[in-house]
């Protein structure tokens, strides 16, 4: 009898503990007011936009970074949201947690009756190709990939090497240690194209000004360099930045989603005046916590690109000619120097304008093996 009693109490205690643990886990996280209307979780969520043109439905599938990656997924999604708001249409989005989600997410959106599906990222090429072949009446747009040649797929690609060239020139001009560095998430073309242009820009600066600024972390000829092996802002990314700092770099270009956050921490630890160069958006604006560190940013017009293709598709003017963002059409560019305005060489802005003109005119050729053809 006593045994049974003890057993029951123990069982009850354990069950209670488990429940407490579960509740505790939830409570620990949920202690804050759930104020954010941010879209999340996988699957499609419906927007609340007033539907005047109810026929059109613009949709988007993220890659595994998710729509809050502070980088290209987020920018693309903002483009879709703003275009839909302007058009007064609805939009839906599906967030991929991993590479296996791509095809199911696209199919989900097709079932939802989307007219346009924007797939964000190089990694979704195969899934987009399959879906576009199977659904000829639905339009697709894919960012960062130019491998699909179908009448219902519009590739949106960016020759970021051109803008990175300018950033490389600016970095070389700013550097006092005569060493600048770069590292990437993974060795894939949308990442290495930044690094190629950056190195070329530094070399052009050396040639022009008889200087010897060195780039650590990327070798254009062998296409080898420093990578963190993923796009997470964790200890690996911090260490990669730390290694560049140890090597004496005073300007660092981290390429790949949020990994610049780790680089920013490494700089704060080093307590040396080291500048960062942002990618994709003007990071000075998008990440105010670290805005004091950004010399400039290499901008890629993902947001306007998505906006444009969404509006065109809604107006029935969709076409499959690839959009290639260049310095000429403003699809890529570098951000203002903001806080660094006073610290750069006063002639730099003029020199950059001249280089921009030369690149547009074709007298300076910026070539990267990863450039869109």
């Amino acid at each position, binding site marked *: 009898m006593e045994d049974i009693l003890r057993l029951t109490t123990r*069982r009850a205690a*354990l*069950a209670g*503990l*488990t429940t*407490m*643990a*579960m509740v*505790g*886990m*939830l409570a*620990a*996280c*949920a202690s*804050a007011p*759930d*104020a*954010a209307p*941010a879209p*999340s*979780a996988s699957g499609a969520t419906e927007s609340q936009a007033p539907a005047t043109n109810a026929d059109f439905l613009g949709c988007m599938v993220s890659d595994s970074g*998710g729509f*809050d990656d502070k980088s290209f997924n987020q920018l693309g999604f903002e483009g879709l949201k703003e275009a839909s708001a302007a058009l007064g249409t609805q939009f839906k989005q599906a967030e991929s947690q991993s590479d296996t989600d791509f095809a199911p997410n696209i199919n989900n959106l097709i079932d939802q009756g989307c007219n346009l599906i924007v797939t964000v990222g190089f990694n979704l090429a195969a899934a987009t190709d399959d879906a576009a072949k199977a659904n000829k009446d639905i339009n697709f747009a894919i960012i960062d990939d130019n491998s699909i040649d179908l009448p219902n797929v519009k590739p949106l690609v960016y020759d970021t090497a051109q803008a990175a060239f300018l950033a490389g020139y600016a970095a070389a001009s700013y550097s006092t240690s005569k060493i600048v*560095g770069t*590292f990437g998430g993974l*060795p894939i073309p949308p990442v290495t194209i930044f690094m190629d242009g950056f190195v070329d820009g530094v070399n052009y600066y050396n040639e022009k000004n008889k200087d010897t600024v060195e780039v*650590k*972390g990327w*070798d254009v000829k*062998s*296409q*080898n*360099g*420093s*990578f*963190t*092996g*993923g796009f*997470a*802002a*964790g*200890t*690996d*990314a*911090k*260490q*990669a930045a*730390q*290694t*560049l700092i*140890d*090597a004496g770099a005073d300007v660092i270009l981290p390429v790949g989603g*949020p990994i610049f*956050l*780790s680089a920013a*921490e490494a700089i704060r*630890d080093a307590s040396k005046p080291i500048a960062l160069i942002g990618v994709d958006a003007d990071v000075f604006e998008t990440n105010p*916590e670290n805005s004091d560190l950004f010399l400039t940013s290499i901008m890629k017009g993902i947001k306007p690109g998505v906006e444009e293709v969404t509006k065109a598709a809604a107006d029935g003017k969709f076409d499959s000619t690839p959009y290639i963002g260049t310095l000429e059409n403003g699809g890529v560019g570098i951000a203002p120097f903001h806080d660094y305005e006073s610290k750069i060489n006063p002639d730099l802005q003029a020199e950059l304008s001249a280089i921009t003109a030369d690149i547009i005119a074709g007298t300076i050729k910026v070539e990267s093996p990863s450039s869109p053809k």
Partner: protein
Amino acid sequence: MSAVSQTSGAGADKIVLEKAFVKNWKAPISFGVVTIVALLLFVLNGREGTSSFKLTADATAIQLPVIQLPTVATGIVITVLLAGLTAYSAYRVQTERKTPLWIVAIFAFLFLVGFLAWAGAGASIPVYGLLLGTVALSAPLIFGALGGVISERSGVVNIAIEGQMLAGAFVSAMVATLTGNAFAGLFGAMVAGMLVSFVLAAFAIKYLVDQIIVGVVLNVLVLGLTSFFYSTIMTANPQMFNQPARFPRIEIPVLSQIPIIGPLLFQQTIIIYIMYVTVFVVWYGLFHTRWGLRVRSVGEHPQAADTVGIKVGVTRFWNVSLAGAVAGMGGAYFTLGSVGAFNKEMTAGAGFIALAAVIFGQWDPLKATMAALLFGFATNLQSVLGVIGSPVPSEFMLMLPYVVTILAVAGFVGKSRAPAADGKPYIK
């Protein structure tokens, strides 16, 4: 380990016991493969130039001279030495003796020097940065591995290390931001890791659910929960929820000025000091205290432990919880010790590497720590070589930590034997 060899040569008046010796060619074969790799790279594919090894950072008070080695000559000398060690190891096996650990260590060290000299031809290799980065990258793995060791020694397989760390990272970032106190964040991380452990322990011990399945499910659950709350709460108001105060670097006077060792041991944040202490405490506790004896007994032979009056279920429950708290500290390292703000999927598989370190380290806290350090070293080597411009393609460099782990597990580590009752629920 070398004591085995003494039985055969004993005098006639002593009783000579017959001893079966299984010739194990694993070590010489692994040595041979590595030596061939060395020959191919360092000698036949040698790179001209001088490799310099920088031992101290520029800013430190005591400066050690930069070691300059001619790359090709170093490669040849090292390859010859490696071949010699391989032959010696083969000779030992032939004469029925084991290859002791110190030979493995010397072999690995020589190969490493050769590889660094080869890869860094014409460049300067910052040895201090390499070692310092190793500690920075290994710290979460060490905490995770210690969590794994405690739990598995008590007989519960802890697949949920990743989940415990991720929960720790999330809660520590949030608590440290809300309270403005990093220590509160650390405490929060331990509690979070423990809560994850409670679930694992309850299902595994009380309800006898398969421990591996519970662990895997918990990892996915924590990943989903933290990602959800990150996307909804943290990104909406990072100032309020995701800007934790970080631990400052504490320099211990005088000791921190010792070259190489100083920055490693005496110029760290408090969480690294806690890590060094935890490694020692877990090791001492497991093998030299009553607590450790009980933990090991319920993990090895729960029936016997039960017979002498140790409460198996209770012992396991609290040790699995303790393991969660230790792994949770590893999670706190991500936010409070290293990167600052919490990010989605921040631990990026570190928990699974920690699990590998547990097995690789033969369920021993010290060896598991070494395994974690080895992994951290290989990861950092990859990053350093990427910066100095190595001839190895980036994709291969990214594989390096895993290749090193496989080589070490398959080639150099003896048999890994889990605690006998590890993963088996105890039914009275």
